């Protein structure tokens, strides 16, 4: 890191421009998603709640494809069964509801999201280049990187052919909120780091923290939708009639089981990295402040978040705490993560205070 380097004003201005542009494109993506949901709601496909209350097939045939199997040998078919006691509800048809028009708008929305992502990423990179350091010195920079990574992770799931398009609308909405807050309240001119932040641990600790936050966020959205979808399915199962909004929107989401599975996978997969983030932070604190753990506000809340997610994983392993109860714990854990970011940085005095927030 070259500390004496002065900021490159041209690049810094370009970065600002790129971030604003990405916001404009995200806004377009937002409207495209809205159109997708609106057109989807006019579809009749899968809209009859009756379809759900029917006995769903208990077994799903999985034909596992694999290249290179000898042509003569017919690959045996593997029959899978769900665990007894779980509801066998198929996934909803998605926001587009199977309509051609809805699907078209959905695709437009995803394309716009890709474009906005590229622009925003360029904004983050040019900010980094303008100061020749990691672009994580203050909250404005955290927020822009955070949203870039969250969208990147979402697009990564899409690329891996995972069924995640349903997350598009809530994601783009919150990205716009996050960027809006960043440019109005957290804006800090591009500049060098204070000496305490000048360490290679910045690259390690902060990058993993941002990544964890972004992925935990996707998990939290899925958890929240799971709670809605689960009560919707419960209502159907007990013969109740959900409201028309629930019928229209929740019905198009994946099944509660799929949403739950997605959020568990995401949270469980990222938990070791979050553990690593805290440990890396402790090592850095040991170098910078002479103690690796001092119960500073930021440390406390990282710890609380960590314990929260550990409690969530425990809850999943304990028979009596699966499903909704575990989901509430996951949401509380994510709320702690958010508080650690906004709450501690802004309202609590901590050693982790940075130049201009």
């Amino acid at each position: 890191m070259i500390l004496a380097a002065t900021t490159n004003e041209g690049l810094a201005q370009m970065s600002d421009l790129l971030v604003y542009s990405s916001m404009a494109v995200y806004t377009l993506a937002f409207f495209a998603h809205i159109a997708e949901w609106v057109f989807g709601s006019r579809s009749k496909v899968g809209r009859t709640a009756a379809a759900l209350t029917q006995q769903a097939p208990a077994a799903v045939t999985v034909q596992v494809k694999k290249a290179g199997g000898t042509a003569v040998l017919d690959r045996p078919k593997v029959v899978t069964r769900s665990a007894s006691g779980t509801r066998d509800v198929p996934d909803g048809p998605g926001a587009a509801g199977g309509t051609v028009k809805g699907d078209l708008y959905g695709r437009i929305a995803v394309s716009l999201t890709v474009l906005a992502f590229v622009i925003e990423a360029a904004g983050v990179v040019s900010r980094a280049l303008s100061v020749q350091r990691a672009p994580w010195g203050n909250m404005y920079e955290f927020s822009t990187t955070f949203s870039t990574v969250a969208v990147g992770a979402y697009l990564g799931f899409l690329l891996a052919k995972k069924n995640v398009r349903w997350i598009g609308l809530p994601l783009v909405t919150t990205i716009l909120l996050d960027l809006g807050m960043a440019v109005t309240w957290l804006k800090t001119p591009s500049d060098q780091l204070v000496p305490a932040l000048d360490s290679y641990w910045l690259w390690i600790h902060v990058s993993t923290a941002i990544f964890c936050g972004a992925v935990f966020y996707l998990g939290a959205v899925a958890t929240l939708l799971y709670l809605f979808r689960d009560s919707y399915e419960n209502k159907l199962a007990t013969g109740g009639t959900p409201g028309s909004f629930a019928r229209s929107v929740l019905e198009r989401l994946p099944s509660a089981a799929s949403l739950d599975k997605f959020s568990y996978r995401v949270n469980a997969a990222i938990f070791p990295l979050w553990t690593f983030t805290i440990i890396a932070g402790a090592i850095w604190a040991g170098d910078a402040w002479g103690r690796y753990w001092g119960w500073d506000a930021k440390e406390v809340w990282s710890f609380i978040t960590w314990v929260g997610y550990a409690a969530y994983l425990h809850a999943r392993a304990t028979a009596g705490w699966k499903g909704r109860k575990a989901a509430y714990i996951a949401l509380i854990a994510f709320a702690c993560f958010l508080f650690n970011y906004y709450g501690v940085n802004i309202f609590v005095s901590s050693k982790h205070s940075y130049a201009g927030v």
Partner: protein
Amino acid sequence: MSKTDTSEQQEALGAAGAQLSTAPQEDTAVGGPALGVIGWVRWFWRQLTSMRVALILLFMLSLGAVPGSLIPQNSADELKVRAFKDAHETLTPLYEKLQFFDVYSSVWFSAIYILLFVSLIGCIVPRSWQFVGQLRSRPPGAPRRLDRLPAHTTWRTEAEPEQVRAAALAVLKGRRFRAHQVGNAIAAEKGYLREAGNLAFHVALIVMLVAFAWGQLFKSEGGKLIVEGDGFSNTLTQYDDFKSGSQFGTDELTPFSFTLNSFTGTYQKDGPQRGTPRTFEAAVSYSQGDADKKAVIRVNEPLEVGDSKVYLIAHGYAPVVTVKDGRGKTVFHGAVPLLPIDNNITSTGAIKVMDGYRDKNGKKEQLGFKAFFVPTFAGEGKGTMFSQFPALGFPVMALTGFHGDLRVNSGLPQNVYQLDTTKMKQFKIEGGTGVAQRMLPGETMPLPDGAGSITFEKDIKEWASFQISQQPGNGLALTGAIAAIAGLTGSLFIQRRRVWVRAVRGEDGVTVVEMAGLGRSESAKLPEELGDLALALTAEAPPTAPVPEPAEEPAEDPVPSGEADK
């Protein structure tokens, strides 16, 4: 990923599904114990080591950590605690009773984590034994109805049942399953590392706690302010302040010394963040009794000497002054460290001339000066005496002189940066503000009535303060942390699963092969793996007739069970 170990399924599977993990069974009956004292103790212990209580304790731990992040803590900043106490007179007694100013060493917080760790140990020991038992035993035999398992496949082949089983054993072993034959089927299991990882993770948590406690008991930590050119040797008497754990012995201080050769600070020169520090570097030479070595201490780069680490904590200016008495004799010459009061290092402090001074009549007296120093002065008539920039741009010092008794021998501990003027008289100064006189480097201020003079020397030194700490157990804590991450990764990403292959001769004389898989959790990978295994096995046991289409609901008993083979 809802777990499959619901009791209903457990029953259907019998021994085959048992022991796929070492997680304690949750006894849902909360009823009290039946038998006297021992019964109660037993009951209590079972409760404490149950997953439910572990969960509750985890919750309480995070909840208990909250107040410490919102209320100032003695361990972090005693000044802030004092300010808080002054501002909240009604809350303070309550908070003190609840130990809210020392949350992390409070009785109740300690109780929570000690209970949690007792619970953890009580949980981990039986689980470890159980796991060792599982490692030494073999995977359980196939359940009677393989088609009831989460993943299942079947086909018919011309190959002999023995041949199929031998092939299956080879295929499974080739993929590092632990496999053996039970009756007419092969039983195999893989993914023990998951359990090992989980146990390792929990043990690592204990290791980290032990390391932390050890560090707290044996640590030492002291502060020392050093002016450029001065040195420090690591003995107790040299510290400005010193704290240590209860088990620390002072003879354990690493013997070494160091000298601060120079301190360099650079600051942002322009832009909106003008004045923000950019680099702090303390160039030192240090020795452990041998030849001097040179090093640079930076904010994130402490100097390591033996078990000790030297951290750069703060810095400031130390103007050099010379004081002469009425007869022209130098009674004081040296650098006086001043404490910064803002980010631009506006500094205040005191210059004390304890002995050697005589006034013009030859009477012994002491002198004291209140010093106010700015590294960069705003300029005459700018209306502020505060510094405009942290570097030495336009250094100015204002001094107010006193004579009399400094009261250093009054028995009360005295702050070196403050002057006790209760027994002193202020010098009257001609011109100036009448209170203090501003001086530029190199200037000399005569004291009134031939009382001598004070000179603000051109050479302005900087000082740096260091924290010297020694804390054992860091290596152990780091080892624990790495083991925790490794164990956790194994625990979360490895699936423990069982596969059974049954081959029996059907009624028509054709061999029927049945394969099934069972995992801890429903995963898409399990059927995929089963498919792969089946494909590998079909090389040795090619299907004859087209593979029968699996029915929607598997037919009641598609395969004659075991006996047919005998």
